[in-house]
């Protein structure tokens, strides 16, 4: 097959032709440059169809799904004859009679009309929709910056933050990085209470403006300021934390120095190295009271494992007897006592309420002195008062019994006065203890003719001496107290003052409230203690049965501040050296209000607290 291919292209108003020849069996049609008949139109595939001749007949077959039209009829495969007009995507291909050695002439007319592209009628890409990306970016940037920074900052620098908070405008509340600790929650949304100067970290004086009684850790006049652990309150006390803790709890804050105090220039004879409660912590020391020859109480620290360690409270008290499982005699019969009958924690559990004669002993240890009047007792705590009570008692007895013993109206007169006549009481099998006044006077070999005043004095002093000797030396005082005879005409006995330790471990804070699920005996071996001198405080090994160090496994993880405090009670307040007057605004008002209420509360409670007759304070025995 030989073909002459004539291309006719429209060029403006004219037409341009060019031609080529082909010899072969198959002529290809398509956009591709390798095609026999190239139609450079993007709508066509690279290879569109094939023109073949078989048995002298031309035929056209499209490749794939492509189609063409022969004389207006759509087709994929069609025979062609001279005069047929094939349309391929608007381009026409006319089959003409062969001439001058070619079998067929193909007139290919290429259309080059410029019509609107179909695609242009539609929005086929997101960019056609003209989304306001750039505008949205600017809006987001500016709205965020103005709303979250510029407006609150303007309020801050113009001192109009309160106005912003009242209006539905963005204020500095959105800057908070975490809720305030509950103890600070009352500060509300006034950030300036603590954040006084912009771009300056919260200063110590801003904290100390409220916390005026917070103390140093050690004597800063000797060791310098507390910056061994941090220069700012905020180094240990972190506000706005979601964990709820405002105190640095790790033990490194302590052990950084306490692992080797000498290395940080703070060597101490008393303080031994400590790094961890389980692994490295010195044994407990107790503070023991000692009554000196100068009649002063002094406290001395002792290792708890010293063998000869005794408590010198000057009290006689056998715990074992009181805690006996068989019970103990009391005015109301046999009772079984428990620890809590005498030892009750204070509210909060840190200290024990004082044990007092009045509240804890007197119900059994009644200070009676006359079996005929068992309800009459002498006062506790003051021997001169005791002697005075005895004298008054026996003077009255002399008056009521002796002077009117022959008056027939005596009993009626006494009854009218509300005074019962003395009963005769005696124990079965014994003679009556109470002798008649006449007998006593007879026994004193006194001149029967002595005056009534002399007779009364002999009677009263005789009975007082006997009752006092009984009380002090035999029946009552000496049960609990150390009594020594002294050459004193008024009170010829001395009771050594009693003082119980109110703080065995003053360097730690132990809460009984936190241990209320334990038995007292777990730590205090009281039921086998026969003398008050026994030290019933636990050793560190006892605590370690439950408590471990900071990273303890299987034990209660306990760090330094589980038992110890940083701001020591016995040190000077930080305010005295660190607080400087600052120019506060709103914060000042809040602080002033708090301080006023705190002061009012403390004064009120001090005035309202009753006089304490506890043993701890009863040093007043002569």
């Amino acid at each position: 097959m030989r073909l002459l291919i004539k291309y006719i292209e429209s060029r403006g108003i004219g037409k341009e032709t060019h031609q080529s020849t082909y010899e072969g069996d198959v002529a290809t049609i398509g956009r591709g440059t390798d095609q026999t008949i190239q139609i450079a139109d993007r709508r066509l595939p690279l290879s569109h169809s094939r023109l073949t001749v078989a048995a002298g007949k031309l035929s056209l077959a499209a490749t794939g799904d492509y189609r063409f039209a022969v004389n207006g009829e759509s087709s994929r495969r069609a025979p062609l004859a001279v005069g047929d007009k094939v349309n391929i995507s608007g381009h026409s291909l006319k089959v003409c009679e062969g001439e001058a050695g070619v079998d067929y002439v193909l007139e290919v007319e290429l259309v080059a009309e410029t019509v609107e592209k179909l695609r242009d009628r539609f929005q086929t890409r997101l960019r056609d929709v003209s989304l306001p990306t750039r505008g949205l970016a600017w809006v987001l940037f500016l709205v965020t910056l103005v709303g979250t920074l510029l407006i609150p900052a303007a309020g801050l620098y113009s001192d109009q933050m309160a106005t912003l908070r009242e209006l539905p405008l963005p204020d500095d509340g959105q800057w908070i990085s975490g809720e305030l600790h509950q103890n600070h929650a009352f500060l509300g949304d006034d950030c300036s209470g603590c954040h006084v100067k912009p771009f300056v970290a919260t200063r110590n004086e801003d904290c100390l403006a409220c916390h005026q009684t917070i103390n140093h850790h050690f004597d800063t006049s000797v060791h310098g300021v507390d910056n061994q652990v941090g220069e700012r309150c905020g180094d240990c006390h972190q506000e706005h934390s979601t964990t709820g803790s405002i105190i640095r709890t790790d033990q490194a804050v302590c052990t950084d120095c306490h692992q080797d105090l000498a290395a940080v220039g703070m060597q101490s004879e008393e303080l031994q190295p400590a790094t961890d409660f389980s692994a490295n912590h010195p044994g407990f020391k107790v503070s023991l009271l000692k009554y000196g020859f100068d009649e002063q109480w002094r406290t001395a620290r002792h290792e708890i494992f010293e063998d000869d360690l005794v408590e010198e409270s000057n009290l006689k008290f056998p715990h074992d007897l009181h805690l006996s499982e068989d019970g103990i005699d009391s005015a109301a019969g046999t009772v079984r006592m428990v620890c809590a009958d005498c030892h009750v924690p204070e509210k909060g559990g840190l200290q024990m309420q004082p044990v007092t004669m009045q509240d804890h002993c007197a119900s059994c240890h009644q200070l009676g002195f006359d079996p005929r009047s068992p309800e009459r007792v002498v006062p506790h705590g003051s021997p001169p008062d005791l002697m005075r009570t005895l004298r008054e008692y026996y003077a009255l007895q002399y008056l009521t019994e002796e002077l009117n013993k022959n008056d027939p109206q005596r009993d009626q007169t006494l009854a009218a006065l509300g005074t019962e006549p003395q009963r005769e009481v005696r124990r079965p099998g014994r003679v009556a203890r109470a002798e008649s006044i006449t007998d006593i006077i007879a026994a004193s070999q006194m001149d029967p003719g002595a005056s009534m005043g002399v007779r009364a004095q002999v009677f009263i002093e005789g009975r007082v001496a006997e009752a006092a000797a009984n009380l002090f030396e035999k029946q009552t005082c000496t049960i609990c107290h150390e009594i020594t005879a002294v050459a004193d005409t008024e009170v010829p006995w001395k009771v050594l003052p009693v003082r119980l330790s109110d703080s065995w471990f003053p360097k730690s804070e132990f809460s009984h409230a936190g241990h209320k699920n334990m038995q007292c005996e777990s730590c205090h071996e009281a039921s086998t203690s026969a003398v008050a001198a026994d030290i019933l405080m636990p050793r560190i090994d006892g605590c370690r049965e439950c408590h471990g160090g900071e990273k303890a496994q299987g034990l209660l993880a306990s760090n330094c501040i589980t038992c110890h405090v940083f701001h020591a009670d016995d040190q000077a307040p930080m305010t005295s050296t660190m607080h400087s007057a600052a120019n506060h605004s709103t914060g000042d008002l809040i602080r002033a209000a708090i301080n006023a209420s705190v002061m009012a509360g403390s004064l009120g409670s001090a005035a309202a607290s009753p006089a304490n007759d506890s043993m701890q304070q009863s040093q007043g025995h002569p």
Partner: protein
Amino acid sequence: MHTSFLSHAGGRYFWLALVLIIACCTAYLLDEPHQAPNGGTWLGYTLGTMGALLILWLLYLGRRKRNFIQGWGTVRGWVSAHVYLGGSLLVVATLHSGFQFGINIHTLAYVLMCLVIFSGGYGVWAYVTYPAARNELKRSQTLDDIFMQLEDADGQLKREIGSLAADIRGVVTSAIERTEVGGSLWAQLAAVDHSKVIIDGVVHANPDQVKVVSWLVQRLTIAEGAESKKLAGVVRDYGARQKLLRVIRADIRFNGLQEVWLYLHVPLSFGLLAALIAHIVSVFIYW
């Protein structure tokens, strides 16, 4: 050979990002900040500074990719680093926060950052998935090519119906003229088809050209002789046109899904930049 931005330079930035993540996590686990982990510890400040610098650098990519003059590194390298280091930012910033969140500017900055990162992550997935799918769909042709084929098919159909009955001419012509592809953002993404056809003077919805094809098939049952044969050709060619429209619609949809994230990613990035500034400044105002 074509190399994806994901495997640029042997995944150099993947390994860099991985090392960064592991280093940050290790530091976080080993750090004992003596307080609840937060942005204010020394590690918190370190992570925060790293995160802020990363954000600025990642934003710079938006400007760098417009540099057609060859600068330092290739655009593909920058995209690769942008993707991997951008992903690592999620870890850096989360550790910086110490997992403390609230209703405040700080968490707003974090949330915006997450939205930017997640939209970018979607973009990575889209750029890996859709181009290949679209290429397969269009058999390596461009959408313009398909539209030209559609134009061709339209012309062919118009020629074919020239000799057919008036009702057929009316229906097919109206269906061609009232064919709709693409459109609004939603129409492109959901491939909504608002095409219409007029049958007996009434405008009918013609999604996926189903209405017109079923009308033509019914019309074929009452056609006779030469008309029947020609009409069968029209039905066949209309089916081919329908296929082309499906390809076009699917490509528009895929292209939309491939690019739509950028319309969030970029504006959110600027919102993040503002929130980042507010976060840093406000923290130090109330230090």
